[in-house]
């Protein structure tokens, strides 16, 4: 059995007195497209943010490609890593945000080459060439010199995907990538994600797009109240859910 790309064991996280993750354990294997579904407040975004240590976990253990995230173990203690050490770990994990979070003072191409040139110190010419190829891959080669403010939401999100890919991550995290988009722009972003999945990228997607989960996802994890309720094949979970909480959620969403 190969080492999973992401291995999470009993992940716990609280904000103040509110425990938002109550012990999540799951594996994400290489090449898998895992969709996290669940009502808002169920902790799925928080779990995603724990994977690249944007949120510190309060309990449990997490590995990406066999490397423990955020901590170093010695004996029975976990020592928190310093900021520059976690920064290094993050570069292997790409992240796409609901609000795109492109750098508004840089053009599309400058956004894409920022990580490679600043973090990985790749020569600028090479980064530009690879950046152009990535923009072409998301269908935006002609927008290279546009600023984010001159692009539609869908185009911005595609640039954001290209920006994450530029660091050649081993897993891509998507935090509700289409929730801030006008309905007619959702398709173009899902298309890019679909082609990314077809290319074999490991993806973890927090989404409300049931169609995408069914069509592109290999596995669906349904979360509620900070717990993993049900995992399985998308068709089984979405069409014939076993757990009452999954059934209740789906009947509301699909109604």
């Amino acid at each position, binding site marked *: 059995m190969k080492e999973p790309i992401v291995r999470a064991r009993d992940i716990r996280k609280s904000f103040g007195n509110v425990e938002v993750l109550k012990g999540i354990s799951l594996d994400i294997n290489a090449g898998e497209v895992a969709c996290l579904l669940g009502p808002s407040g169920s902790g799925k975004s928080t779990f995603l943010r724990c994977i690249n240590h944007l949120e510190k976990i309060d309990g449990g253990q997490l590995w990406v490609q066999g490397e423990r995230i955020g901590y170093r173990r010695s004996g029975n203690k976990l020592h928190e890593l310093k900021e520059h050490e976690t920064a290094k770990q993050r570069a292997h994990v790409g992240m796409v945000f609901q609000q795109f979070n492109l750098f508004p003072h840089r053009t599309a191409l400058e956004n894409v080459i920022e990580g490679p040139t600043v973090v990985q110190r790749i020569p600028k010419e090479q980064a530009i060439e690879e950046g152009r190829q990535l923009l072409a891959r998301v269908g935006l080669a002609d927008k290279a*010199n546009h*600023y984010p*403010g001159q692009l539609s939401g869908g185009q911005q999100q595609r640039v954001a995907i290209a920006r994450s890919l530029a660091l050649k991550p081993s897993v891509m995290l998507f935090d509700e990538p289409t929730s801030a988009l006008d309905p007619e722009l959702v398709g173009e972003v899902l298309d890019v994600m679909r082609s990314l999945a077809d290319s074999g990228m490991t993806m973890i997607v927090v989404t409300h797009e049931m169609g995408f989960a069914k069509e592109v996802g290999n596995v669906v994890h349904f979360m509620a109240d900070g717990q993993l309720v049900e995992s399985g094949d998308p068709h089984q979970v979405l069409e014939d859910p076993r757990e009452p909480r999954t059934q209740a959620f789906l009947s509301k969403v699909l109604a």
Partner: protein
Amino acid sequence: MTLYQATEDEKGLSIVPARYAGRWVMAGVVVLGVVLLGYGMVTNQRFQWDVVGEYLFAAPVMSGLANTLLLTAVSMAIGIVLGIGVAVCRLSPNPILSSAAWAYSWFFRGTPLMVQLLFWFFMAALVPKLVLGVPFGPSFFEISTNTLISPFTAALLGLALNEGAYMGEIVRSGIRAIPVGQTEAAKAMGMSRLQTMRRVILPQAMRVIIPPTGNETIGMLKYTSLVIVIGYSELLTSVSIIYSRTFQTIPLLIVAALWYLAVTAVLSVGQYYVERHFERGFTPHKAAKPAAAAKAAPVHAAAVALASGPEAELEKVK
């Protein structure tokens, strides 16, 4: 079902803008006021415009102006660097650093600049000797405070340290204006705290920081006249030395005022260009100069852009 067609009568009637009599009356009052003011300035002999002309480019006035500009530029430069440091410390998770930065702002904003200037000038009375060495241990180097603190260094210390406190608040407000998503995106890419600050946060914060910094610079230009109390010879000191000799007080004050106005005008123009520079990406309506390929049909644009003009666009990116 056919679409309704508007009749001729429903279509093109011409529009007459509303007219406001009150606005015309107010405008007339203002114009009259300006004319009276100008007439008075030209005909009132006590303005002594000939004396103004005589001293406007006089050597002592010029050297005073040069000192004013030097003091303004160096104090602002130090003040801005200090301000960035203070702001970063204020926002630091380290409680000692953030309280120290807070205390600095509190002290230098809470005491009159005039007092601070005098304090630095008379520092020798408090600390007669400055020593470089191991704390509570041996010293390597000693210097008398009076040698080190000239009127210029006292003026510089007073103005720059005071400015640092104000700039700290301005920079802090600029940093805080940037949405947290920008920091998260930079972090997610593996950027360090310093890289995030330098490449993502500060360039965007500049948009918020520049206008009040322009204010501060213009303010500083005039605050430099306070150093008259410690005898540093800047613009106002220079003209006051002349009029105390010739008693041509009004024309010489006009000379000083004209120079302050002229420099302020130049600074305002400079501010416009600096603001425009940091406005990159924030003016969505003004489209970026489209690359040649961008005009091609969008469907094929991806391929065309790569095939046709990569060199030209490479130049732009560099």
